[in-house]
């Protein structure tokens, strides 16, 4: 299946900037051998299942970069496919680092898997350290509220957190806005069971009628379209008032929303 990667995996891997320790993992636990299996299976989803169309990969700078994307689709497939883009479609190939919920660290296998494929716990110290090592970091400022949007709210961005902007200002990192089209339709959510989620200590518990169908647990094979926008540079005091930061954050949110809107207009069909 490795031919899905476009060329020999090892060759691409050799061009990924990595800082490995003596035992062959990086300090956050990223293991290229695990990443290989993961990217190989992602390649199938990326090329055949979701048939992702990628636009604007030339906007991704070398060196540190903060990718800010809209979050959607009930499962974080959007993050996985942006990661696939960065490895398979961007030159030179990059390993995408993303921040995961703290809660996932308490789950067996999940925490192990996230760590080995380079995903880190979502605390500011980790993000800062990664950017200082010139990594590509993906953030979803909408958080869990974004991924669990119900179907009638699709493609309407909810409020952005401010943390990513403080981080960008502190580390002098350019922000690349990313719009993901196609994830909202992969699961049709009618709402959220808030009490049940609380009971199970889960962030959200969406109501997904399609789970009742045979193979309904699989996401629908919608066509993904991923747009990378031009890098946005911000300057200012990272410890500024929230109101000052909100303006900058709003500029990023408006950019992502307008990229989403343009992408939706250009799209002829959800599935093709």
């Amino acid at each position: 299946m490795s031919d899905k990667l476009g060329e020999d995996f090892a060759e691409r891997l050799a061009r990924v900037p990595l800082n490995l320790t003596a035992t062959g993992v990086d300090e956050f636990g990223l293991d290229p051998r695990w990443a290989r299996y993961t990217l190989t299976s992602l390649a199938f989803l990326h090329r055949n299942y979701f048939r992702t169309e990628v636009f604007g990969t030339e906007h991704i700078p070398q060196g540190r970069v903060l990718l800010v994307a809209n979050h959607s689709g009930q499962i974080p497939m959007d993050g996985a496919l942006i990661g696939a883009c960065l490895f398979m479609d961007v030159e030179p190939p990059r390993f995408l680092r993303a921040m995961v919920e703290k809660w996932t660290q308490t789950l067996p296998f999940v925490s192990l898997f996230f760590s080995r494929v380079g995903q880190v716990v979502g605390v500011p110290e980790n993000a800062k350290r990664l950017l200082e090592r010139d990594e590509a970091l993906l953030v979803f400022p909408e958080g869990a509220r974004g991924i669990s949007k119900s179907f009638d709210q699709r493609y309407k961005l909810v409020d952005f957190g401010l943390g990513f902007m403080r981080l960008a200002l502190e580390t002098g990192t350019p922000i690349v806005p990313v719009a993901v089209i196609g994830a909202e339709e992969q699961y049709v959510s009618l709402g959220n069971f808030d009490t049940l989620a609380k009971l199970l200590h889960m962030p959200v518990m969406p109501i997904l009628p399609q789970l009742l169908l045979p193979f309904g647990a699989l996401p629908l094979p919608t066509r993904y379209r991923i747009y990378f926008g031009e890098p946005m540079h911000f300057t200012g005091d990272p410890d500024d008032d929230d109101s000052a930061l909100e303006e900058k954050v709003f500029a990023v949110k408006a950019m992502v929303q307008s990229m989403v809107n343009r992408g939706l207009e250009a799209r002829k069909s959800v599935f093709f």
Partner: protein
Amino acid sequence: MAPAPPSSVPPSRLPGVLTPRPPAPPRGQGAIVVTGACGRLGKHVVRALHRERRVIAVDRRAFRDKPKDVSHEQVDIRRKKLKDIFRCEAIEAVVHLGVMHDPRASQAEHHSWNVAGFQKLLNYVAQFHVPKLIVLSSANVYGPQPDNAQFLSEETPLLGGARFSEIRDLIEVDILAQSFFWKHPETETVILRPVHILGTVHNAASNFMRLPTIPTLLGFDPMVQVIHESDVVRAIVRALTPEKRGIYNLSGPDPLPLSHIVKLLGKPSIPIPYSVGKAILKRLWALRLTNFPAPELDHIRYVCMVDDSRARTELGYLPHVSITDTVRSVNQESW
């Protein structure tokens, strides 16, 4: 040692008599008091120092194969007798290694030894104007938590007791040393927080790695940091340099996943689901069949790693032992 006849008591030991002590040698050459000197790490520290400095080993245990030029005071640090050591000669530095880490000892004994004993020691350091105090704390004071940053800085709150209340007195020792740092700026206080120390030392981490079959938690494989005892000794010697003060995390060579440690040791391991492992360990602990308390399972479940860049830049500390040698050192008897 037989009690000395009253006539030979130095005048300074008599109450109410004030005589000047012999003048202190220049900084960098004075006597060093090492508490907990008869532990495995303590002996290494004493051996690293005694050729160049006068070393006074303080430990209530016996000091077998003690170097001849080291004087050993077999006292309990909670006893008044400790004061005599400070009264008799000018002490340049106190290296406090005598922290009790015995999960089987009673809570009261643990607390009185670690907290009350250390408090006494601190009083003497202040009273006799000892210019340097080094306290060996541990990175465990931060505690393994699911929401830990990958590398904890020295400013991270000490939450180690949140899930494992038995180590609260170790955190208290660290905090006592911190408040001493601020209250007594004339003493250069250094707090060292090393990660799991390996080598000939016996602690939870090294004993865990000495198990014939290493249990792991199914689906968890956290990144861990280990440090060789000789690197800890090196850091202590560095911290003795005049002018150095502050809190320093210490880590060894590169971090690695727990599974790589198991591989380096060449031992079999069995993965056990967390809930089962916890239940079994609780049972075994109650039956006194194991010396690992159940909350320590969090160390093989979540990360508790430190950022030691401050020690590297300010103390000039650098680990010398490679990761392979550090891990394998648990099976050796000496270095």
